[in-house]
C-alpha cells in the first residue's frame, strides 16, 4: 500500500475545525461545572483566556495555511481545503467566544 498519509492529511486539513470543537466543548463544560464553585469574575477570566488561546491558535493555523499555500507546491485541493477550514476555524472560534464580551458568565 503506498504511503499516502491519509490520517495525517485529514488531521492537517481539519485541525482548525477540531480546534473550534475543542474550544466550544471546553468552554461549555467549564461554564457548566465551574459556576457553582468559582466566582463570576473568575469564570469569566478563565473563559476569556481559553478563548484567546484558541483564537491565537486558529489565527496561527490560518497564517500557516496561507504561508504553505504560497511557498510550497501542494495539490490545489488540499491547500484550498486547508485555507478554507482555517478561515472557518477563525470565524467559528471568534464568533462562539463573542457572548463572553456581553454576558455575565454565570448569569441567570
Amino acid at each position, binding site marked *: 500500500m503506498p504511503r499516502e498519509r491519509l490520517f495525517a492529511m485529514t488531521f492537517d486539513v481539519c485541525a482548525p475545525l477540531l480546534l473550534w470543537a475543542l474550544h466550544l*466543548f471546553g468552554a461549555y463544560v467549564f461554564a457548566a461545572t465551574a459556576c457553582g464553585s468559582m466566582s463570576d469574575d473568575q469564570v469569566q477570566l478563565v473563559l476569556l483566556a481559553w478563548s484567546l488561546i484558541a483564537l491565537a491558535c486558529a489565527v496561527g493555523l490560518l497564517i500557516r495555511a496561507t504561508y504553505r499555500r504560497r511557498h510550497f507546491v501542494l495539490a490545489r485541493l488540499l491547500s484550498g481545503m486547508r485555507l478554507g477550514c482555517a478561515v*472557518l476555524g477563525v470565524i467559528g472560534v471568534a464568533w*462562539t467566544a463573542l457572548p463572553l464580551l456581553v454576558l455575565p458568565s454565570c448569569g441567570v
Partner: protein
Amino acid sequence: MSSSPDSLPNILPRPEGEREKLEAVWRTPQGWRFFKSVNNTNIGLLYIGTALLFFVLAGILGLLMRMQLAVPGNDLLGASTYNQVFTMHGTVMMFLFAIPVVEAIAVFLLPNMLGARDLPFPRLSAYAYWAYAIGGLAFFCTLFVGLAPDGGWFMYPPLSGKQYSPDVNADFWLLGIGFIEISAIAGAIELIVGILFTRAPGMTLSRMPIYAWTMLVVAVMIVFAFPAVIAATALLELERAFDWPFFIAERGGDSVLWQHLFWFFGHPEVYIIFLPAAGMVSTMIPTIAQTSLVGYRAIVVALLGVGFFSFGLWAHHMFSVGLGTMELSFVSAASMAVAIPTAIQVFAWIATLWRGSPRLTAPALFLLGFLFIFVLGGLTGVMVAVVPFDWQVHDSYFIVAHFHYVLIGGMVFPMFAALAYWLPLVNGNTMSERWGRWSFALSFIGFNLAFFPMHISGLLGMPRRVYTYDGTLGWNSLNMLSTIGAFILALGIALFFIDMVRTLRKPKQHAGNPWHASTLEWLPNEDYGMRSIPQIASRDPLWEQTGLAEEVEQGRHWLPGTATGGRETLMTSAVQATPLHVLPLPTDSWLPLIAAAGTAAFFLLLTIGAVLPAAVCGVAAVAAVCGWLWQIDRPSPAPQARIGEHTWLPVGARGIASHAWWGTCIMLTVDLLIFACFLFAYAHASMSGATCPPPGARLPALGWSLSAGMLLLASSVMLEVARRCDMHRQPQRLLRLFIVLAAIGMCAAFVIEWRGQHAAGLDPTAQAWSAAVATVLAYQGFHVAILVIAAAYLLFRSWSGRLKMASRASLDNTALIWHCTSLQGIVGPMTIQLLPQWMG
C-alpha cells in the same frame, strides 16, 4: 481530452466469451431467489422502494393529523390515537424514511459513480437493508394494534418512563429504533470504505464527484452521531426493563441526560439528512446548467464545516430546559455559525446556474423549489438560534413550520429531483415532463400553503402536539388553510409516484446519457456495473474524456472481464486512487436475509416478552452471521490477477491494506463512542448529586480493578502471540492454546471486576450513579460474551484447517476487537474509581 488508443490498459479484440463470463458471474437470480441477491443495484432499488413506502405511509399519517386539526373541536381521532399518529409520523419520517433513503440512494448510485463493480461489503449492505425492512415494517404494524409509541419522536423521559408509559409502546420505539440505527451504521461503514478504496484508477480526491465527498462526510457523521442515540435508547430500555433509574429524579437520575444524548445525535441527524440531498443538488445543477460546478473546493470545505459545526448545536434544542446562560450563548453562536458553510453551498449553486444555461426540466424545477424553500427554512433556523426568540416559539407550530421547511425543502424536493433525474438508470426511460411540471406545481403550492400558515399559528400561540383546539383562539382559518395545502401537496406527490410507476412499467431500453451529464454512472452498465473500470483523468470525465463510454464498453479499460472467475472489484489507494489489489467479492446468499430477520425478530419478540422465541431467533441470527463470515474468509482464488494487458495485481490483501481491517476499525470507533456515552452518563450522574458516590453506594477496592486490568493486558498479549504464531505449522496447537488462554484471561478479568462491585454492594436499582456503574460493567460483559463466541469460532476454524496465512482475516479482526475490549475494560473501571476522587 481523449485517450490515445495505445495508452489504454487493454487492447482489442477482447478474448471470446469474456463478456459472457462476466455476465454469468454477476447475473441477478430470477424469481423468488431475487431476494438473496446482494448486488448494490438490486439492494439499492429495494432499499429506495422500501424507504419510499415508509414515506407514503408516514405521509398518510400526516394527512390524518391535518384532517383532525382542520376544524376546532374535531373528534375524528381521539387524544390517544392522535398521540400515536404524530409519534409514528415523526419517527417513521426521520428513522424509516429520511436516513434510509439517503443511504439507499448512495448504495444504488455510488459504485457506478465511482467506477466500482459493487460496494466492498455487499452482504453487509444486504443485511442492513433486510434488518431495516423487516424491523421497520413490524414496527409500523404496531400502529394497527394500538401498541405504537406515543411519546413523541424524541421520546423524552419522564413521559417515556415506566411511570407515565407503562405499556410496551415505548419499548417498541426503543428496541425498534435501536437496531434500525445499527443498520444505518452498517451502511455508513460500507460507504466510507467504498468511497475511500474502490474509486476508479486516477479518480484522486480532487477528481472525486462532489456527491461522493458528501456521502463520505455524512457516513463519518453517522459514525460519530449515532452511538449517542444507541446509548440513550439502551439506558432508557434498561430503566424500563430493570428499573435502573437513569432518568428518575427521586433516585438521582436526570431527564436532561436523555436530551443531551438524544440531541447529540438528533441535531447532526438533520445535516445527515440534508447533506446527501445537497450532494445530489451539487451533482444535478452542473448537468442542468451544462457547466462545471462553481466552487468545488469551497463546497468540500463547506461540507467539512457543516460536519463539524453540526455537532456543536445539540443544545439548541434545549434552550428552555434551564441550562446556564453562557452555555446557551455558546450553542446559540454555534447555531448561527453553521449558516456560513451552508450558505457557501447555496451561493455555489446559484453561481453555477448563473454561469451556465439552465434548462427548466422537471428536475430543475424541483431544485429551484428546493432553493426557495430551504433558504426560508434556514432563515427561520437562524431566528430560533436566538435564545429569547426560541423561548417564545419553543414547542409551538412555528417550530413545526421551521423544520418542515428545512426537511421537506432541504431533502424531499431534492429527492424528487433526484428520482426524476436518475430514474433512467433503472430501465432507460425518462419520466414525463408534463406530469413532472404538474407534480412540481402542486407540491410547491401545496407545501407553502400547508406550512407557511403554521409560522403564524405558532406565533399566535398554538402549541404542537395538541389533538384539538378551542374555536375562539383565532387559529381556525390558518389550520384549515394548512389542511387544504397538505392535500394539494399530497396530490402533487401522488402524481409524481404514479408517473414513476408508469415509467418503470415501460419496456427496458438503453439509458444512454439523457441529460448529457458528466459523471460515470451514465456509462453503459449492467448487473456487473460497467464493462471495464475506467481510467479517470478529469473531474467531469464524460464531458472531458471523449470516447470514454465506447472505450469502457469495448473493454479497453481496467479489468474488462472476471480475472479470478468470481465477482471482484479494484481496490485503489485513498488519496491518489492508485490500483492496489483485486478485491474478490462474495456472491448472492440467503445468510444476510436470515441474519437480519433473526436480529429483527429477536428485538421485536423480546419487546412483547416472548423470551424463548426471541432467544431462538437470536441464535439463528448469530449462526447466520458465523456462516456468512465462514464463507467469506477464504484464500484468494489466485495469487495475482491480470487487470490490463501488461498489469497484474495481487488478489486480496491483509492487515491495513484489507477492506475488512478498515471496516472493523470503523465499527470499533462506533463501539468506543457508545462506551464514551456510557462514561458520560456516569459523569453526569456523579455530578448530579451532592456527594460522589451518593449515600448508600461505595466504590470497590482499587485492587479489584487493578487485578482485572492486569489480566486484560495479559489476555491481549496472549491473543497477539496467537496472531503471530506460525500458521503454516499443522496442527496449530500453540495457536489454539494461546486463544484459549486469552479467552480465560478475558473472562477472569470480567469476573474479578464483577466480584469487586458485588463486594461493594452495587445495586443498580438504588440510584442513577450505581445504574451507570452497572451499565459500564454490563457493556464490558456484553463484549466478553461476543469474544467468547469469537474465540470458539477461531478454534473451530483452526481445527477444520481453515485458519491459514491466506485466510486469517477472522483472526486479525478478532484481535482488533479483543484489544479494544481490553482497553474498555481498563478505562471504564479506572474512570469509575478516579472521577469521585477528582471531584473531591
